[in-house]
C-alpha cells in the first residue's frame, strides 16, 4: 500500500482526458480562426484551409489515441489502470464523433 504521487495522478488524468482535451483544443482553434480570423486579415479560403487542417490533425490524433488505448487495454496492472484505459478509449471515441460532426458543419456551411 504505497502512495502514488501527483506526477502519477497527472499522468492518469491526462491519459484519461486526452481525447476530450484534443477535442476542446480543436474546437477552440476552429472557433477562434473562424470567429477572429477575419480580424487578423486572413482570407476566407485560408481560414477554411486552416480549419480543415485542424480537423484532420485532431482526427488523426484521436485515431492514434484509440489505437493506443486498444493496445494497452489487454496489458498490465490488475486494478485501476484497466478501467482508466477503457474509460479513456470511450472518451476518445466520443471525441472523435464530436470532431467528425464539426467537420460536417465545415463541409456544409459556407464561410
Amino acid at each position, binding site marked *: 500500500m504505497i*502512495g502514488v504521487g501527483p506526477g502519477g*495522478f497527472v499522468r492518469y488524468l491526462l491519459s484519461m482526458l486526452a481525447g476530450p482535451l484534443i477535442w476542446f483544443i480543436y474546437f477552440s482553434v476552429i472557433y477562434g480562426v473562424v470567429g477572429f480570423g477575419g480580424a487578423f486579415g486572413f482570407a476566407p479560403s485560408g481560414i477554411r484551409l486552416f480549419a480543415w487542417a485542424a480537423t484532420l490533425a485532431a482526427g488523426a490524433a484521436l485515431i492514434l489515441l484509440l489505437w493506443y488505448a486498444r493496445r494497452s487495454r489487454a496489458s498490465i496492472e490488475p486494478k485501476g489502470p484497466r478501467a482508466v484505459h477503457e474509460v479513456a478509449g470511450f472518451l476518445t471515441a466520443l471525441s472523435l464523433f464530436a470532431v467528425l460532426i464539426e467537420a460536417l458543419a465545415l463541409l456544409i456551411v459556407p464561410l
Partner: protein
Amino acid sequence: MSDFPNALPRPKGELAELEAIWKLPRGPGVLTVVNNTYIGLAYVATALLFFVLAGILALLMRLQLAVPDNTLIDQGTYNQFFTMHGTVMMFLFAVPVVEAVGILLLPQMQAARDLPFPRLSAFAFWAYLIGGLFFFGSLFFGLAPDGGWFMYPPLTGTRYSPGDNADFWLVGIGFIEISAIAGAIEIIVGILRTRAPGMTLDKMPVFAWAMLVFAGMILFAFPAVILATFLLELERAFQWPFFIPDKGGDPLLWQHLFWFFGHPEVYIIFLPAAGMVSMIVPAMTGVPLVGYRLVVVALVATAFFSFGLWVHHMFATGIPELSLAFFSAASVAVAVPSGIQVFSWIATIAAGRLRLTVPSLFVLGFLAIFVIGGLTGVMVAMVPFDLQTHDTYFIVAHLHYVLIGGMVFPVFAAIYHWTPILSARPLSERLGRWSFGLLFVGVNVTFFPMHIVGLMGMPRRVYTYPEQMGWDWPNLLSTAGAFAIAAGVLVCLVDLALNFRFTTTGSAGNVWRAGTLEWLPNEVYGTRSIPVVSSREPLWDDANLAEDVRAGRYFLPGASTGGRETLITSPIHADPQYLLQIPGPSWRSLLAAAFTAAFFLLLTVKLVVPAVACGVLAVAMIIAWLWQTDPGANHPPVDIGDDLVLPVYVTGPASHSWWAMVALLLVAASLFIALFFSYLYNWTVSPQVWPAATGQRLPVASWPAASATAFMVGSVAMAFSGQMLARAREYGDWPVRLGIACACLALAAGALIELQGHWQTGLRPAMNSYGALVYAVIAVQCQLVAVAVFMGLYTIARSAAGMLTPVRRATFDNTLLFCHYTVGQGLLGLLIVHGFPRIAG
C-alpha cells in the same frame, strides 16, 4: 475477510473519547458546528428555503399571466420578480443544493470522518446563508435587480439602470459564486483524497464521480462569470467601457463570458442529479448499475462538450453562420452522453426488480420529463428552429423540463431516498406518493402548454399580453398547474415536518437494503472504523460489513491523535497515506463569513466606511482562523491497524492543502484566460480604439522589461527562501524571512512598474475599451500580487512565531506555489499587453 486490521474487543473508553471529540457544541456555540452532517443538512435546508421563496415569486408571476391584460403586478415589480426567480433558482438553489448534498453525503459514501476542510464548508455555508438572505431581501425595498438573470448590458449599464438594483446582482452574485468555488475545492480534495482504503477510482460511487466532475466544471466555468461581473461593476462604478460600443466595447462580450459560464451551469446542475439517480436506481432494483464505466464516460464527456455550447444562446445575435454551425454540432455531440445515462438506467431496471417506492417514482418521473426536455433541447440546437423559438415560451418550457425534470425531481428522490440515514424514521410513503403525483401532473400541466404558446408567438419576460392573441387558455392552464406544483412541494414539506427527526445516533438505517457505504451505521463521528473496500457495493458483498465496522474491526476505530482526524488516501488507488488532523468548531470561520458578507453588501449600498471596517474584520478573522491550521508533526506516527503506521503530517505534493492550492490556482488561471479572451475579442470588434489606430503611445520596452525582471526576482527570492528553509538548522530563520520579504517587495514593484508604465503614457481606463482592458489586466494582476504579499507577510509572521520549520512548512509551500503562479501570470500578462499591440497593430 477473515483478518481484520484491528482486533476485538476494543479498549474501554475508546468509543466515549471518539464521541466526546466529535460532539455538537453546546448553547450558542452550536452555531460554530463544522461536522459535515450538520453543515450539510443546514445547507440543504437553506437551499430548499430559497427554492420555496423563488417558487412563490413564480406563483405570483403565474397569477399575473393567468389572464390577458392583467394589472395585478405592475411591470417594474414583475421585471424584478422574473429576474429574482431565475437568479435565486440558479445561484441560490440549484448549485448550492447539489453542493450541499455533496457535503452531506460524500464523506459517508467514502467512509471518511469528515471533509478535509470542515471550517471551509462552514464558511461557504454561512457566507451563502447571510449573503443569500440579504440578496433576496432587496426585493422588499424595491432594490431587487430587474435586468434579467442574464444581466445583458447595455440595459444593465448605468445609463439604462442608474439605481443600485443592478449592483445588488453583480456584487451579491459575485460573492455567492466565490462561496460556490470554495465548496467545489473542498469537494474535489475530499473526493480525491479522503476515500476509504481500496476505493479506487473504478469503485467510486457514481455520485462521487458526478460530484468530482461537477466541482471540476465549477473551477472552469465560474471564473468567467466572476470576471464578467467584475468588468461590468468596473464599468458601472468607474466608467471603464468594456461593453459600451461608442468607446470600443461590445455588449456581446458580456454574452460570451456569461454563457461560457451559463451553459455549463446547466450541466453543473444536472450531472450531480444524474449521479443521484445512478445511486437510487441500483438501490431500488437491487443490482449494480449496468454500464458503470459508460456512465462515467458520459459524465466526463458531458463536462467537456458543455464548454463548446455557449454560443447556443446567441444564435440570433448575428454571429457568422459557420460559427453557429460549430456550436450547433457541439450541441448535438452533448446529447449522446445523456442518452448513455438514460439507457443505463433502463438496462438496470431490466436487470433487477424495481421497487416502486417514492424515490423510484420520482426517478421515473424524472426520466419521462427529462427525455422531453432533452428532445426539445436537440430541437433548439438546430439554428433555424432556434431562431424561431429563442426567447419564447417554448424555451421557458424546454428549460423547465430540463431543470425540473433533470434536477428537481432527482433532488426530491434524493430527499426521500437518503432521509433514513439522517432521520430516526423515514418519510411517509403515502404523503410521498401524493407529493410525487401533484408534482408530476403539475409540472406537465404548467409547462407543456408553454411549448404551444411559445410556438404561437409568445415571447419570454413579458408582464402582460393582449387578449386577441389566443394565448389566454394555455396561460390559464399553466397557472393552474403551477398551483399543483406548489401543492406537491407543500405536501413534501408537511411530510418533512411530520417525519423528519434528525439524529446522529440510531437513524432509521438501511431501509432500502442499498449497497454503498453511506448506509453503514453513521454516528456523529461518521463510521466507527473505516472499512477496506473491494467492490462498488461493499454492503451487498459482505453481509457482516456493517457489524464489523460498528464494532471497530477496521481502520482507525478510535481517535489516535486525541483530536478530530480522517484518513488521507492516494487519489487513484486509495492507499492510506497519512492521518489528517482536522480542526473542530470555531467562531472564527463563522465571523469571517459574516464580516465578508457584510463587506460585500455594505459596498453595494455604498456605505464605504462600514464596508471597509467589515472587510478588515473579515481579514482579521480569516487570519485568526488560518493561524490554527498547519499544526505540524505534533504527534508521532500512529498505528491505525494492520500494522499500518501513518504519519500525521506531510508536506509538499502529497499534502491535501497542496491539492487545494492547485485547484485554487486553476480558478485563477481560468479567470485570466477569460480576461485574455475579452482582450482579444474587443480588439477584433473595435480595432479602431487600439494603439495602432489611435496613435496611443505604448510604454517603451524598458518598462515591461523592468517589470518582468522584478517578477522573476520575486520567484527567485522565493525559491532561495525555500532552499534556506530546508537548511534552517544550519543558517537559522533569517535568510528565509529575508527571502520572502524580498519576494514580496519584488512582486509589488513589478505590478507598480507596470501600472506606472501605462499611466505615464497618458492612457486612462475610462478613455476607451483598450485602456479599460489594459488596466483590467493590471488590476487582476494587482489582486494576485496583493494576496501573494499578504501570504508572504503571513508566512514571515509564522516564522517569527516559530511555527515554520524545515518539517512544518505547509504554509510556506502554499505561499511558494502562489507566488510562482503570480509571477507566471504576470509575465504572460506583460507579454499580451505589450506584445499584442506591437504585433497586431
